């Protein structure tokens, strides 16, 4: 039974990091209907900013983590302002193509720095001994990752439900024309969505970097790995991203724990989430919590 609960805990840990990374996609899609394919690059940028502040500027890592979120907030806001603002009203496919271009640009910029081709790790700042409860292991880094994820999810839930800006963002997501008619600045909402997505990307990058180390390939690939989570959750649903993240994390851990290595199976932990995704989409094409839009002709 201990083994089962260990898999549950590991699944929640992995799933909550997926959820945190997926939130960035959802925030942008929710407000602007754009899939930001450069989200993995923002995750990597956030991780490297945290590293730079910690190692080169000698700022305590906790402070660097927060500063990195703030800096990435403004970085993503600038990206939206420079590259995407002028595409408002253009076909969505054009905007998605711009995010692909953005992906290459950020890749190129990071490859110009030593980070692009170096392997690094954050200085140790957590106890190296894990937390052990009834034979179940969880490292302090993972624990911190889960706590930060749930804290941010809580903050965002409040933000979208209670704050004026959050409600404006939801309104823009529902109907841009109607939102403009009541005085909401749609461009401002788009900018804010990108900025907030940047903030979550930096948080995900910092946590990921602490868990797997800083390798650019691994970090930016995470933006693609987390994509099934976004689809499963329903593209425009924050709770969907969280639930789907944890479902994916649990599926991976159970596949790894019970299927891999038995009956000649291997690699099911990587494959099974996609199979589950396809099966769920057969029955719920908009994902678990996605908005089911009905178009009347």
């Amino acid at each position, binding site marked *: 039974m201990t083994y089962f609960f260990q898999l549950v805990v590991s699944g929640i840990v992995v799933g909550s990091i997926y959820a945190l990374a997926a939130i960035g996609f959802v925030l942008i899609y929710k407000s602007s209907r754009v899939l930001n394919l450069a989200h993995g690059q923002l995750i990597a940028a956030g991780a490297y900013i945290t590293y730079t502040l910690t190692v080169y500027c000698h700022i305590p890592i906790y402070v660097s983590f927060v500063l990195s979120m703030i800096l990435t907030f403004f970085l993503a806001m600038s990206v939206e302002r420079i590259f995407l603002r002028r595409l408002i009203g253009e076909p969505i496919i054009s905007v998605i193509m711009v995010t692909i271009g953005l992906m290459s640009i950020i890749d190129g910029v990071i*490859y110009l720095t030593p980070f692009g081709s*170096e*392997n690094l790790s954050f200085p*140790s700042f957590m106890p190296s001994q894990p937390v052990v409860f009834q034979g179940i292991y969880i*490292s302090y880094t993972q624990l911190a990752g889960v706590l930060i994820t749930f804290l941010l999810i809580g903050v965002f839930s409040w933000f979208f439900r209670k704050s004026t800006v959050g409600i404006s963002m939801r309104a823009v997501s529902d109907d841009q024309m109607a939102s403009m008619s009541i005085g909401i600045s749609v461009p401002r909402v788009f900018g804010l969505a990108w900025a907030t997505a940047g903030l979550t990307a930096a948080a995900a990058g910092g946590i990921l970097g602490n868990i797997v180390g800083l390798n650019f390939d*691994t970090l930016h690939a995470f933006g693609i790995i987390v994509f099934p989570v976004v689809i499963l959750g329903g593209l425009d649903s924050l709770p969907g991203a969280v639930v789907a993240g944890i479902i994916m994390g649990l599926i991976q851990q159970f596949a790894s724990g019970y299927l891999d*290595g038995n009956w000649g199976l291997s690699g099911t932990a*990587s494959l099974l989430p996609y199979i589950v995704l396809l099966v769920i989409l057969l029955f719920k094409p908009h994902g678990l919590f996605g908005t089911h839009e009905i178009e009347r002709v």
Partner: protein
Amino acid sequence: MKTKKISIWMIVAAVALMLAAPGSSTAGEVYKTALSLAITGPTSDAGNPYSKGAEDYFRYVNDMKLLGDDTIECTIRDDKYETAITKRNFEEFLDMGIVFYLNYSTGSTLALKRDFDEVKMPTLPASFHAGNIEGSDYIFLPIASYSAQNIGLAEYVVDHHEGGTPKVAMYVHPSAFGREPVKDIEKAIEAGLDIELVETVEHGQDLDVTAMIQRWRSKGVAYVISQTVQSPVATMLKGAKNMDLVAKHFGEKGKMTFLGAHYTGGNDLIALAGDAAENFFWTTSYIVTSEPGAGAEAQLALAQRYGRDEKTANSHNYANGIMVAQVTTEVIRRAKAKGKPVNKENLYQELLEMNGMNAFYPVTTVGPVTYSKDDHQGVDTLQLYVVDDGEFRAEGKPFISEYAEKIK
């Protein structure tokens, strides 16, 4: 007086014309070679220092006039780890008239294998995949294949394990690069290598390996041999350390000893895994700068001469790049010494004759480079290293895998 002036001017003009004349003996020959590799993109953590190693050594050859007035011109191009770009680069290199080619990845080497043979281009890849040289006359691995490295590690486990047959798991890259050595270890087991291969795991982008490690523990796995790159190994080591399962010395009872082949180790692994990398056993045919010696000194001096940073200077992939440039230079030197034209046919012949008394001893490897018609693996010798206090230290003497020879 006027006649004397004219004569002087005529002499000056004649000398100037002589110096400017094409093919003049003082200008020297230029031998064109090329390298296509991932300076950016996936695996650029290895490709970047590799390219610098090759570039620096060729500069050194030219600066120090190691080939007299002749020079080597090595065109280095980034292929971003994309085979289509490698192919395009290679075709452009052919148009430039290269006489020797340095390739990089397993995928592109396998994809271009026929091209190399068709144009009879002697080629040294950075990939040590045994399949690269199967059915190819013109590809030469710089060092022992991944299969030989993994079998060598398994042999070390057998020789140093106490009590019964050691239980081993393999943790491999989901590609030909990772899979081929598993097949060869299975062949070695059939040939009598006394290990029990409990499980082979092809990793994904895992964030947590707790389930895998616990499963291995429940199956009694004591040794894990990795054939992949550093990043997944670092995640695995961190996970195992988290569960206090990393052996503090080789074969510690109730714990796991982690081992890996060339691209799993080096300073990048320590950078990623931190203290979780302690007691990681790693094999390669290259020297490391954390072990004092002539090779380490030469590597560091070359890096210093060309202003490389400390990380590059100490990278085993920098040594890797230097070594392939050394082999290239050596075959050119030998062809020249024999008065043969430096072309791809003659350089190929020089590679085939690089054995016995003609073996080549670059200081960057732990053994000699030997090639022949039947032997396309350069350095057969391997050295085991272990991470001790954040640095790789040599463990025992260099060795040659016995079963790798047996299953050939």
